[in-house]
């Protein structure tokens, strides 16, 4: 038990249990946020897909515990969960973001008001990554009711502050889940119109393949 006395008790952010991090973990991580069980339950799967000529990295499989956390975070407004989503990938992202700036996919103003916070902004903020919140969604259509094609025409995304965009810099467009990829594509369009050349995508989970499989 002597070795344990030097290690402080940590509380898991997701399951709220207290735990003792192992020696290696306490050496590597400044403050361990997740307990071993929660880390194990995450279905990590880093995948690269190409959407409309843009390389998009997906970080997790669309199942398991992360879906539940996202529900708690976005719908039940568990604000403190924000650092959980990028916890595993934070060191990697810190390196990536030395060259790239994150741009957030917009949510509608009503949603942000309803929640009281911009959920994507808080996720990025938790790790001090450089980000720009310059996209704005205009005509909000209820996402689930509209079919893909209709929405493409109706959704309008604009860049509010073009002076912040530098065409020679690289950017990383960030969204939590892509389902029909409409918002994502419209955001890409808006960025390209504003003159951005080098852009990549970063998504927590990809729901579109799952949907297609279900339809089949």
């Amino acid at each position, binding site marked *: 038990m002597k070795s344990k006395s030097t290690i402080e008790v940590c*509380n898991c952010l997701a399951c*709220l249990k*207290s735990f003792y991090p192992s020696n290696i973990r306490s050496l590597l991580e400044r403050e361990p946020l997740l307990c071993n069980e929660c880390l194990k339950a995450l279905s990590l799967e880093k995948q690269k897909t190409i959407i409309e000529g843009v390389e998009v990295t997906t970080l997790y499989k669309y199942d398991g515990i992360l879906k539940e956390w996202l529900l*708690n975070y976005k719908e*039940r*407004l*568990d*604000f*403190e969960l924000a650092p959980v989503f990028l916890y595993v990938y934070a060191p990697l992202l810190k390196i990536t973001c030395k060259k790239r700036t994150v741009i957030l996919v917009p949510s509608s103003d009503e949603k942000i008001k309803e929640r*009281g*916070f911009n959920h994507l902004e808080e996720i990025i903020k938790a790790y001090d990554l450089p980000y720009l919140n310059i996209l704005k969604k205009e005509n909000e259509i209820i996402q689930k009711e509209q079919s893909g094609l209709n929405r493409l025409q109706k959704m309008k995304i604009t860049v509010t502050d073009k002076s912040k965009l530098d065409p020679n810099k690289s950017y990383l467009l960030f969204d939590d889940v892509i389902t029909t990829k409409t918002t994502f594509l419209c955001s890409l369009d808006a960025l390209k119109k504003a003159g951005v050349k080098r852009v990549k995508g970063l998504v927590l989970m990809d729901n579109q393949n799952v949907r297609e499989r279900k339809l089949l």
Partner: protein
Amino acid sequence: MEKFICPKCGNSNPRFIGHKKGLPYCRACISFTGKEANPSFSVNRQAKLELSYDLSLEQQKISTGVLNAFKAQKNILIHAVTGAGKTELVYKTMEYCLNQGLHVGFSTPRKDVVIDLLPRIQSAFKNAKVSAVYGGKTTILNADIIILTTHQLYRYNRYFDLLILDEIDAFPYSESEILHSFFKKSVRGNYILMSATATEKDMKEIEEDNGVVFSLYIRYHRNPLPVPQITIFNRYGLFFTCLKKLQKHLKMQRKVFVFVPTIAIGKILYSYLSIFIDKGAFVSAKEEKRRVEIEHFKNGELDYLVTTSILERGVTIRNLQVIVFFADHEIYDASTLVQIAGRVGRKSDCPKGDVDFLITEENDEVNKAVDEIKKYNRSL
């Protein structure tokens, strides 16, 4: 800063309190949000209790006692041994409440117990509307009698005039303060607690909270509880012992539960046993097919089940034998072992059976469980 206390679950532990833009909020009960029951639901007063069997003398006595205590607006703790017929003891009180138009709920920590209770209570109250509410089935929230897991109690704020809580010492209710506070909050009238392994602390608490205790140490068929046999062997020998015992039971056409402490041990044991004996299955909380396997076992298609503690409570199967593999594992305490031993001999047409505890070394909890069972048998 002023101390924040959650208005919903009463939590004030700073570990479970988060801050959203400077404002505190409770994280402990955040997943307990959803549709709530309609508080002005009116109960069908015509409900009548119809039992196809008679209660024993002791059962009748306590059942009347419970009803009188409820009428006197007291809280009640029923401490009755496994297989004593606890559920039947509260039927009379439930009938009284329904006839008065009061809200009746029957709660238990385990989902499997809720599923098993539904047909039993429906057949006792044929003309009442009985509904089960548990994770995954929460569409009908209002009914004459609601059977629910303790996790769903948050939907019923100050709703129940009579709330029965079975298996008070079962996980997760026993360790969760949130569930305790939801239980307290959903009671408008009085409550009845039931347990086969109530401790002195439980009894003291209920007596302080305007309550009375009823005890029943005899099974309804007046046969003694089966006393466990202990077999001590080394780790690897136990696998062989387990196989031999299982084969002996199956030769005599008996059904067997083999309890294992963890999922990992269960998988190893089942893969070993299934080489020699087919018609078995392994069930645990993580297996998706568990309800199907349990149904198959009840129908007689399977002969034995290797199971984790999910089947330790509320299961009644005719002519069942029990083997507890590694009964000295640290997850088993005396009350769990008493519960497991209580699965045996519950039907009056085969009141006897074998309980085997397979252990690697002498263990206090195992001895305590055996002593407790012997103590109950002495009062016969």
